[in-house]
């Protein structure tokens, strides 16, 4: 079964957008590998002919009528903003430069 190196753990933390301390990375390396060992049990089962179950109730394409309805009060929503500018959330810049 797969085993995670420290570099793998750092890569997954980057994918998950988690800033982790060296201590956290070291602890997670051990713990994640211990948990991955438990996953190995699933390899005992031949599942080639088994369809996956993503959810358990057979509801599909649930749509509501396309009717305009009142939205949430913008003031109540923006009250939670860490940083706002009028009726907008201030987001970190994603494009470099001035």
């Amino acid at each position, binding site marked *: 079964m*797969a085993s*995670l190196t420290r570099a*793998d*753990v750092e890569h*997954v*933390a980057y*994918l*998950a*957008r*988690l*800033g*982790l*301390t060296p201590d*956290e990375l070291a602890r*997670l390396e051990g*713990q*994640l590998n*211990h*948990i991955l060992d*438990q*996953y190995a*049990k*699933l*390899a005992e*089962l031949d*599942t080639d002919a*088994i*369809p*996956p*179950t*993503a*959810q*358990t*109730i057979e*509801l599909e394409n*649930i749509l*509501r009528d396309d009717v305009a309805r009142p939205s*949430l*009060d913008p003031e*109540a*929503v923006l*009250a*939670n*903003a*860490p*940083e706002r500018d009028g009726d907008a*959330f201030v*987001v*970190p*810049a*994603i494009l*470099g430069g001035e």
Partner: protein
Amino acid sequence: MAEDLTQLLAHEMAARLRAGDTTSRELTAAHLARAHATDRGLHAWLTIDDGRALAEADAADARLAAARAGGTEAVAALHPLHGIPVALKDLVSVKGGQCTAGSRILEGYRAPYDAHITGRLHAVGAVILGKTNMDEFAMGSSCEHSAFGPTANPWDLERVPGGSSGGAAASVAAFQTPLSIGTDTGGSIRQPAALCGIVGMKPTYGRVSRYGIVAFASSLDQIGPFARDVRDASALLHAVAGRDERDSTSAPVPVPDDLVGLPSSDDEAASWLRGRRLGVPREYFVAGMDPGVEARIREAVAALEAAGATVEEVSLPHTDYGLATYYIVAPAEASANLARYDGVRFGHSVRGGEDYLADYLATRGSGFGPEVKRRIMLGTYALSAGYYDAFYLKALKVRTLIKRDFDQLFDAGFDALVAPTSPDVAFRFGEKMADPVRMYLSDACTLPVNMAGLPGVSIPCGLSGGLPVGLQLIGPAWSEATLMRAARGYEGATADAAWRRVLPTDLARLDDPAVPTPAERIAGR
């Protein structure tokens, strides 16, 4: 001396309310006072909102008065929960109130709208007292993963109440509220109900709308009730269940009125068991389970048989694969759901790094606790390029096998399955914190039920070493009313059992204003 209203069951409160012997304000004030006075040693609550609760109580009293003026029919039309206090796990949105999900990353957030079930509870006239403690984002089996400190178990303040809905279960067991709402993704209602000696049900996936509930694993999460008896739990489920178009997974299946029609007579309740067919899955008696738990479950099975049920040993052969399957599917879904906590629109936010990525890393790295980080890491890995088929897709296929195990038994005509809820009684603080896999095993008997989307209820069935043991009843999809009848049947058949008279051992210690908090207790040893 006036009667202590907090000692009553919800349906007893409702009867006194209708008879004019008390008011919703009195009931609410009594529970608020008890919750404030006894929560130092328990820490079941994250917020108690006296003002809002009393205003809701006054509104309920006014509605009752108006109904009285309208005659007996108008009074009879009120829901059994009218005027009755209820607590919400702190992941249920109440407009204007905090909703932390037990996490620092949601500190300071105020919900801009009501959850569907909040609206339902208001509509039936229930009174919301406040919000209860939980493992962060409902990830945990002990409530020790709350960012705001753990909750204790009223049966032994050195022990955990179970989790993730630990505060919800402890508050009901400690008579701070007759009813509370929890959520169950892998056992988070049933396991704490078992460890605190109360009733807790996880309904069928799709039974209760999750609109306004903080999401953990969206193909597994379900909302359900806690109470000190089956009738109260059933009435609370009745109040919150039903289709809501704002949650596309909430199913258009009628809510059975039977849920509020359970027999009050113990003999009548027990007689329902006659001729019912119950299966006892042998795989649920796992190696290493507490011998006292196994003994109580065997006795409970014997009591069901004595009451006239037919009991057969059955097999759910893929049970042993449940844990690995769950710990792929749930973290995978969690890693996607928790991507929304980026510090931009609400909650904890760290800004000022060298670029946007630095801000995200800092916000999430400092906002999430260790268990949540572990699960996000597991889920991100299981979904990452090159591993999706080996982990996530494989787990979804094994999930099919787990579900088929249950389907085959219910297709063969079993009314319900009977099993332990948890292989252990309440464990000590810290006992399972060092090894996540040991903690995860606490849910070995509950998480297959979530994988299959089925309803399950945990009811008290005695004590092992002075600590409560939970009996789990599992039914086919949409069989909540039958499961509640079966649970009420067991309650009726064992109404005279001596253990039913035993109160949580450490209740009296909670009255001491200088009792250590759970966090102080852990730090001090």
